[in-house]
């Protein structure tokens, strides 16, 4: 079963069995989603590969478009957890093989994503999704 990573570590999928309201890939043009986001509870964004950094900008754009539900990233590394959280994701989904290879402590090491945040310091706002 896939594992859901949050700031407190590994957990089960709170939406277990239920499909996301919107399941998208990181090659989507987020502009095409305007007007479709109201009332959605959960969006899952799968990175085409961990190095496809468009996913981080798409997360920002989804928040910008007013999405306030749960935003889940799939397909990234523990080393990118901080970026994901700052960009507006709430959680990360990983498969069992990844959970074995990069166990919980490696993700928890990045759970202090609010620390050392230059952008926040320069913006003077605590709103990470802005």
């Amino acid at each position, binding site marked *: 079963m896939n594992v859901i990573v949050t700031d407190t570590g590994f957990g089960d999928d709170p939406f277990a069995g239920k499909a996301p309201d919107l399941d998208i890939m990181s090659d989507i043009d987020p502009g095409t989603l305007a007007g479709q986001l109201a009332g959605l509870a959960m969006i899952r964004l799968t990175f085409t590969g961990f190095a496809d950094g468009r996913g*981080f900008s798409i997360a920002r754009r989804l928040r910008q478009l007013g999405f306030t539900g749960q935003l889940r990233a799939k397909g990234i590394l523990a080393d990118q957890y901080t970026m994901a959280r700052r960009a507006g994701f709430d959680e990360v989904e990983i498969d069992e093989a990844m959970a074995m290879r990069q166990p919980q402590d490696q993700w928890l090491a990045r759970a202090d994503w609010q620390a050392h945040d230059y952008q926040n310091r320069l913006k*003077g706002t605590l709103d990470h999704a802005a």
Partner: protein
Amino acid sequence: MYNHTDFDTAFITARNTQFRAQVERRITGALTEDEFKPLRLMNGLYLQLHAYMLRVAIPYGTLNGAQMHALADISERWDKGYGHFTTRQNIQFNWPKLRDVPDILDALARVGLHAVQTSGNTIRNVTADHFAGAATDEVADPRPVAELIRQWSTDHPEFQFLGRKFKIAVTGSVNDRAVIRAHDIGLRIVERIDQEGYKEQGFEVIIGGGLGRTPILGKVINDFLPRAHLLPYLEATLSVFNLLGRRDNKYKARIKITVMEHGLEYIRSQINQQFDHIRPGFSGIDQALLTEIAQDFALPPLRQATQQPYHTAYDADPLFRSWADTNLTPHRHNDHAIVTISLKAHGATPGDATAAQMRRMGDLAQRYGHNELRISHEQNVILPHVHKSDLPALHAALQKADLATANIGLISDIIACPGMDYCALATARSIPVAQAIAIRFDELKLEHDIGPLKVKISGCINACGHHHLAHIGILGLERAGRETYQITLGGDAGANTAIGARTGPGFGADDILPAIERLITGYLALRQSPQETFLQTCNRLGMAPFKTMLYGAPNQEKAA
């Protein structure tokens, strides 16, 4: 100059701890090589031809004496006792061991240096005019803004995995010494008079420049961006690039291609739209931080003293006079000078400095130069604020360290990339070509007569040596298993930035030096006066006579 705040120090400490763990996790297999690669690159670590290479940032080219000493120590303890200063205001160490890199990064951090984002598909080390804060032609010192951009771009969550690298340069003057039109974004500080008649500072924003296999000069996307809009505008631009830029082909992934494919107008409208969205998220506190940063860059307290020792030495010592004529640039306080220390001794590797030389330069900066050094994109070292009366003593000290070569701006002041001697991507050697040219024209005792001339050499199409922007550019390629050197003429990295034009077929390794010699001899015969520079002659006469010098008269053209 900028002193790291507690915030910066805490960030770098945390970052280095993360990298140390990443190296360990690579060794245990928690990270695959594919996964580790972008992580090491964003910490400056390349895998090269013979070994790892660590690229350390010298933000906007500014260093102090202690930092120079630390670089010397690192080169001795973990490398082979020298470092290579690059065209992007970095220093590269060519022989570190992977296991040692975390310790090297900690040693750098102790003096406020780092290797963050000196490589990888991120926003790279921000570069700036190497004469910043001392030049006579400056609207404002570009370094505070460069530092602000460094902070904003550091570990930016959206932009650590861009489609390609992204380079930003800032200048504060019209006489562009930061090559802003060859960068993904170039910024020029400009002034205008606002409606109430007050002077207002802002930026001319240039976008989509770059060299490599598709050399393109950047275009103005915004002719006056108010100062306070800078960060949201950059963030909007990068966000548009991140989403729109191509990821299917590495050679088409730079923003210059995005701009070419979508058109400047479309890109501009996308940026403006995104700017409007994100601008309210910036409270304006960055401007207060910028004011604080700027205080760190205030001009040091300059000394008042007689200039007599300078004049005495200038009249009496021909070596000093020759050095003063080429290596000094006027300072905004005319009893001071900007000193360029040449890292281009005839026959040396352009941009290399030994540990002893680094220490000597650090000491001399402390003694004569208000503890400030700069690294130029031309791979030289600069002491920006030296009182003229100190110049004879400084020159004598430089002579002792083989650092007094009087050739700044001349034919032997060559920019050369590492080429086949170090670089895994190289298709030809570049360092030996630079050495041969420098030695030859030194033997001929012609270089002062030839006057201002920029020769730049790249060892492959990636153009790290800026050959497109040289008066005489040399590009090393491989043709049928042999090194072949193509020549371009008429490039210009200055205020009238221009990309050079190819002369024709390339020359073999044995023929490139004679070809350059023919160009120079031909130029000397054609120039209208000794004051007419090579570039001026080139612009006046066009390519034809130079082609004849290289290949013979048109009717008997032979493919070399």
